[in-house]
């Protein structure tokens, strides 16, 4: 294994992880909900009227983050190599997968693991290993 030290960002990644943890803890303590982005958005599409506003305010906060960040420091690059067809298929797969799995990296990986949920541990192990295997196949086997 070759470690990419040039792009290794231990401090900012740790700090980012702490912020994600703080936001998740805050959400479960103050709002009594699991902070799972795919569920907040996905279940919002068919939600009833009284169950919608909190989703909108949360997403609004999320979308304001790049703006606030850019006042302090330049935004990191967003590099996408895949073309739009691949992105379309990938996005669809993520959507279907997170609904079948009842959560994504935030709901299962951050919140679920923190509250020692076995279901979330299984889900996280599944999607992380699927990610490693897919990247390996795409980059090193079929490339």
């Amino acid at each position: 294994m070759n470690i990419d030290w040039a792009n290794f960002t231990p401090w900012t990644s740790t700090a980012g992880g702490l912020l994600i943890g703080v936001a998740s803890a805050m959400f479960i303590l103050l709002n009594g909900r699991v902070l799972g982005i795919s569920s907040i958005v996905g279940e919002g599409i068919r939600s009833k009227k009284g169950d919608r506003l909190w989703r909108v305010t949360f997403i609004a906060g999320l979308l304001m983050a790049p703006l606030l960040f850019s006042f302090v420091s330049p935004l990191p690059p967003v590099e996408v190599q895949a073309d739009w067809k691949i992105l379309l298929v990938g996005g669809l797969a993520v959507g279907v997968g997170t609904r079948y799995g009842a959560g994504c990296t935030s709901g299962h990986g951050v919140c679920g693991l923190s509250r020692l949920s076995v279901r979330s541990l299984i889900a996280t192990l599944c999607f992380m290993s699927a990610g490693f295997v897919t990247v390996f196949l795409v980059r090193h086997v079929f490339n």
Partner: protein
Amino acid sequence: MFKQRISEFLAGLIFGLGLILAGMVNPEKVLAFLDLGGNWDPSLALVVDSK
């Protein structure tokens, strides 16, 4: 009610700042973390670890 709205908004904001700071907003960085067979960038392991 109003307090709830504020805390939801702040949770979203802090979560988003965390994603940017951690580098998870860049798909190339996420792929570099998943690419064990190539030039592996272990940064994102620290995101999960520090929460």
